[in-house]
Every structure is written in C-alpha cells, then in structure tokens.
C-alpha cells in the first residue's frame, strides 16, 4: 500500500459475498474493466483503483468474496487480516438486493468494526425481475448506515454509493487528524444484553491478550490495530468471538430482511430454469455436450481459418522483410539462418497459435465464466473427477487446458490444497492443448483417416485418466470435498469478456514470446551448425529400437519440447535434410502405424518449455521436473507397447 501513502488518499474497501458483482462494481466505479469471474473464489489478487467522485478522490480496494469476516477465502488467513491490511477508512459493502437475509450478516459484521460503512444493494435489477423489492430507507434505519440501490452491470447508482463512501472516508480521515468532530457510528445495544456484556468484557481485555501466541493471524494483533485506531475495541471483540455473535447476527438478518423485503412471486425466469436444467443429468449433460461441441467447433473452424490467413499474410508481407534485413545485417550465413528460426518462424508460430487458438479460446472461456455456467460444469463433473482425487472445481482448468496448458496451470490456484493443485496440474499437462491437438490431427487425418484420429484422442484421454488415477493413489492425503455456491446464469457483459480475455492474452504473450523466440533461435543454431546429427545416435536406442520410428523422429520429438506445434514441421525439415528429395509428406517418411505412435508420444510426452516454466513457478522446480519425467516415461512406455501391438517395432 505504498502508493496509497504516496498519494495520501483515503481508502475505501469493497467487501461482499461471492457472485454479488463486486468486481463489476469496481469496474463501473473506476471506469475500467478487468479480470473478473462469475464464479466463486476467483478474485485471487487484490485490485486497487483510484476513483474520482464528487466527494473527492480515494483508493478503492477490491477484496476476495467472503461470507463473514472470520472466513478464510484465500491463503488460509481470516478475511479480517486482509481487510485491516488494506487500512480502510470506510467500508463499502456490496450486498444482493434479492437475498438480503443471506447478505446482511456480513453488513452487520462490518458495521460492528466501528468503521464508517455504506451498503450498496446491488443486483437490484435481478431482484426486481424475481419480484423482490427492498425498502432501502427502512433498512438504513435498522442498520444505522446509508443504503443505496445499485445495478453494477449498467452502472445505476454506483457513482452515488461510491461518492458517499468516499465522503465518509474523508470525514474519518478528518476526525483522526482532528479537523472534524467525531460522530457515534454504532448505536449501542444491537445485540441481547448477555452478548453485549461478553463483548464488553472481551474488549476490556484486548491489551493483555498479546500473550496468546504468535500465529500469523494472531488475534493479539487486534490490540495493536485498536491502539492504532484501525477499529473499535468492540469491533475487535466481535472478531474474537465469532461463535457468539454470528448466530445472533444471522437471526437479526432474518428478522430485518422480513421487515424490509416485499416479495411478489413472479414468473420463473428463463435464466433460472436454464440454471436448474444445467445441473441435472438430463438435460444438463446435453447442454454440456452442446457447449463443448460449440467450443471446439468455433476454435477449430474459426481458429484454423484465422491461422491460415495470418500465416499467409506473414509469408507475403513480413517474412521477406525480416529475411532481407537479417541477411544484410548478419554476415555469417549459419547465424543468420539460426536467427531467422526465431525472428521469422518463431514469431509466426507465436502468432499462428496464439491469436487464432489461444485468444479465441480465452474469449470463449471468459464468456463461459461470466455466464456462470462453469460452476454448473463443476457440479456435473464432480463425481467423475472424484475418482481422480479431485473435486468438480478442477473441471474449469481442465477445460482451459484444451486451449493452452499455461493458463490452465495458473487456473489451478482456485483449488484449496496443494495436493489437488499438484494432481490437477499433472492432468493439465496430459490434456492435449490446441498445438498438440493440431499435431495429432495433421499427422493422422490425411494418412490414416478420421476413425484413427478419433481413436488416438480416445487413447490420450484413457492414458490421462489412468495416469490421474495412479497419481491419486500415489500421493498421500485425501481430497477436500466440493462445497461451492453456484453462480446464477447471467448474460455475459461484452466489455468485461473482452477486457478479461485481452488481459490474459497479454500475460500469455509475455510468458510465451521470449521462450518461443529464444528457443527457436537455439534450435536453429543446433540445426544450422550441424551439431544436431550426433544427437540422433544417443536417442536411437529408444526412438528406433523401442518406438520403431525413423531416427530423425527422435530429434523432432526432443525439439518439440520448445514448441509442440513444431513437431511436424520440424520432422519434415529434418527428414528432407537427411533423405534429400522424395520426402514431400509425412506419408513418405512413416507408415500410418508409425505416425500413430509418433502422434501419441508427442501428445503425452513432456509438456512444452512454457508449461514447464509455469509448473515450476506455481509448484516449484522439483515437482515440475518430476511431472515432466513422469509424462516422458508414460509416453515412451505407451508408445513402445503401441509399436509392438501395431507391428511397427
């Protein structure tokens, strides 16, 4: 929070349950859309935005969705530690206007802290569509805090609610600086006398509770926060006694909700019906099949067309320029050729895979996320994934992995335990990404037909499931069961989907571009200098002896570590270099049986270098290397058995 001190701006914390539209609220308040998901637990990082309102400027801090101040939504620490770490001067609680009873306990808890609180009754449009009206004025009286109705999707009421919170934050700053007179914030006697007495007793003992211990979320730190004026002694006491106050707050919430809500049972909305269908086996599985079919159709048809256009444009416009420049600037022919591997074909590879496949896929996943459908997917797949030691939450990264493994590995962050993250990441590396799927299709479709291609994918799925079951049995521990709020189905906001997809795509390019370009140059150097050929002798026993493939296939497999989609192009280049003319297509180099083995081994073996880097960053190098070794062993084992079954070796 150094930026905050530099700016000296008051801080307003955004607090609310999952799926209440907090992140959209932040986007509307600050005029900038970014990463958000209509699925629980996805605000992993803390977003800080400067906002300008008619009440002045302030910093708005978005915190992860939480059900109470003592829940542990991320990283195992109670939510209040994150809240107090943001040093808020006021709290803007975003609550669901259509489900006041469920959201009020968090509002009451924030109010108890002794900080200024403003309530935004968000999703007011959805509530109205469900026939639910809320008397905001009466609720404000009961809570003794201002309540504003908002619709974050359209922006209605957002500016007013934020301005109010900002003015309260400025006032509190003023009170602490001595320029404003303080006001009582919380009326006394909200709770039954016995509870208030217990809170008063705990508040009185705060300074001495420093002796309790030294855990990271040590409640004794509360004494320090109180001394610093970050919250009231009574507020600290409510954090120490959640088991005492939470049931009272829930009862109060139910009573107040009944008093302020007017429900007119209306017609059942189509989105609700669709939401109910999507979690039943019928027609839920049909909906799932349609969603998956549409995803793959869009990615393969639109993606392939875009990839063709891009490659054509690159070959016509960019390639000649880059080639000419490099030839002129680099006098050593081998070096020039090696540089071109990176600057010409390397960048082309990044564009031809990245823009058509990865970007389109990101747009689709972003739209699915924002629609809320992915939580239905988690329910439908929970049982299947349970057999692999995972919960339905893993379905989301596994789906993303079919586009690119790298973002899927980051996506496993939503899983609660390291064991699940390791298991899920292992499965992710085995799921064929778009580049590997392209290799399988290009190797088999023309030379062996669609049935064999489908069989290859079925085999890859079977290998993935078997490996997942084995990994689950080998890793100690057990899975944490699924308990998850389902997101209501909503029409995705185009701006939000576009903002999220482009943000993730930028991340992908930043991560993959250096690896692909530098890797391609290294590859080119090894190839152009002829150092490549002695390497074949080392690989021959496995490649020729065990897998029954031509010698050059080993090099192509090894280099595919840098770029999976190169596995085929490279094979052709290497084959032409060794065999000379006459090797115009893969069919001339390998039999259909060999191509099948080659496609399976390419798909299952070691993830590409970008995936390895992502694994290492998320789980550590030891785990990343162990996983890669496991997939390599699996690929060689399965490939060798296949070679014998198919009579290739």
């Amino acid at each position, binding site marked *: 929070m150094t930026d905050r001190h530099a700016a000296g701006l008051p801080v307003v914390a955004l607090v609310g349950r999952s799926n209440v539209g907090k992140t959209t609220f932040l986007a509307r308040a600050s005029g900038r859309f970014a990463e958000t998901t209509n699925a629980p637990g996805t605000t992993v990082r803390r977003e800080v935005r400067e906002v300008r309102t008619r009440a002045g400027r302030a910093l708005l801090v978005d915190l992860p969705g939480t059900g109470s101040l003592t829940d542990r939504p991320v990283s195992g620490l109670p939510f209040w530690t994150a809240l107090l770490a943001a040093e808020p001067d006021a709290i803007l609680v975003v609550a669901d206007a259509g489900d006041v009873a469920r959201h009020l306990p968090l509002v009451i808890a924030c109010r108890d802290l002794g900080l200024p609180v403003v309530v935004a009754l968000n999703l007011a449009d959805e509530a109205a569509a469900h026939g639910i009206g809320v008397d905001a004025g009466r609720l404000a009286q009961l809570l003794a805090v201002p309540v504003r109705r908002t619709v974050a999707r359209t922006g209605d009421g957002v500016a007013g609610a934020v301005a109010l919170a900002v003015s309260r934050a400025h006032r509190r700053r003023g009170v602490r600086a001595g320029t404003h007179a303080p006001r009582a914030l919380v009326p006394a006697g909200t709770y039954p006398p016995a509870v208030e007495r217990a809170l008063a007793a705990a508040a009185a003992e705060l300074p001495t509770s420093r002796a309790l211990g030294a855990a990271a979320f040590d409640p004794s730190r509360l004494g320090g926060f109180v001394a610093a004026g970050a919250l009231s002694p009574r507020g600290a006491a409510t954090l120490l006694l959640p088991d005492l106050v939470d049931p009272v707050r829930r009862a109060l919430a139910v009573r107040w909700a009944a008093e302020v809500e007017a429900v007119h049972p209306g017609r059942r909305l189509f989105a609700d019906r669709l939401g109910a269908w999507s979690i039943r086996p019928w027609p839920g599985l049909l909906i799932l099949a349609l969603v998956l079919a549409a995803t793959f159709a869009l990615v393969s048809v639109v993606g392939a067309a875009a990839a063709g256009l891009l490659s054509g444009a690159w070959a016509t416009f960019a390639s000649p320029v880059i080639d000419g420049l490099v030839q002129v600037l680099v006098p050593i022919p081998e070096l020039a050729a090696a540089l071109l591997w990176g600057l010409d074909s390397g960048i082309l590879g990044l564009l031809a895979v990245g823009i058509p496949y990865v970007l389109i896929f990101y747009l689709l996943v972003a739209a699915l996320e924002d629609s809320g459908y992915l939580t239905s997917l988690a329910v439908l797949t929970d049982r299947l994934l349970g057999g692999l030691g995972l919960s339905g939450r893993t379905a989301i990264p596994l789906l993303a992995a079919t586009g690119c493994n790298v973002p899927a590995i980051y996506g496993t962050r939503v899983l609660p335990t390291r064991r699940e993250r390791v298991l899920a990441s292992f499965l992710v590396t085995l799921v064929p990404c778009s580049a590997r799927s392209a290799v399988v299709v290009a190797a088999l479709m023309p030379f062996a037909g669609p049935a064999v291609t489908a069989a290859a994918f079925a085999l890859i799925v079977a290998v993935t499931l078997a490996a997942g079951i084995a990994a689950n049995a080998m890793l100690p521990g057990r899975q944490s069961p699924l308990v998850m709020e*389902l997101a209501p189905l909503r029409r995705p906001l185009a701006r939000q989907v576009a903002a999220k997809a482009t943000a993730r795509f930028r991340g992908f390019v930043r991560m993959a571009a250096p690896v692909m370009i530098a890797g391609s140059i290294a590859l080119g150097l090894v190839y152009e200098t002829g150092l490549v050929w002695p390497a074949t002798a080392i690989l021959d026993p496995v490649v020729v002896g065990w897998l029954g493939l031509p010698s050059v296939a080993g090099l192509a497999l090894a280099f595919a570590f840098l770029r999976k989609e190169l596995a085929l192009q490279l094979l052709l280049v290497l084959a032409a270099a060794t065999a000379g003319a006459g090797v115009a297509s893969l069919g001339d180099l390998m039999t259909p049986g060999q191509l099948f083995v080659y496609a399976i081994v390419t798909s299952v073996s070691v993830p590409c270098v970008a995936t390895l880097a992502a694994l290492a960053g998320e789980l550590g190098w030891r785990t990343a290397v162990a996983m890669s070794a496991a997939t390599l062993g699996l690929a060689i084992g399965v490939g060798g058995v296949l070679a014998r079954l198919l009579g290739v070796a």
Partner: protein
Amino acid sequence: MDASPSIPLARLPVGAHTRVISVPPEDADRLAAEGLHRGDSLEVVAQLPLGGPVVARLGRARVAIARTVAAGILVEAAGRP
C-alpha cells in the same frame, strides 16, 4: 431442537424442504463459508446420480455439496413437500 426424526441430507428427495439439525464438525467451516449452518432452512434442488453432489437452495442461493459431506449433514426427516 425438537424431537423430529433426522435423516442425512444426501438421502432426501429433490423438492423436499427441510431444516438442518446438525453439521459434521470437520465440515462446519466450509459449510458456514457458503452460508449453511445448523438451524437453517433449505430445499433440495438436485441429487446427482452415482454419488455426485447434492444441490441445496438456501434463500436464493444454490450450494453444491459433495455427497460425502451431505451424508454427514442431518436434517429433519419430516420434510415438507
């Protein structure tokens, strides 16, 4: 708590309205995080087959609960239809 007979949430039919009598202590935190506590009213909206999760409606929210957890949640057996 009254003396109405209890039954695991996992065994209640879809459409049943009931009240939570007890939650297993080891799952109490994660259930509370999604807003499910002892004494809450809920409606069963889906029971996925082959040991899949149970989906319960709490207020307007729907919460998916793994069957292993739902098997430990005791609810009133005299579920109102």
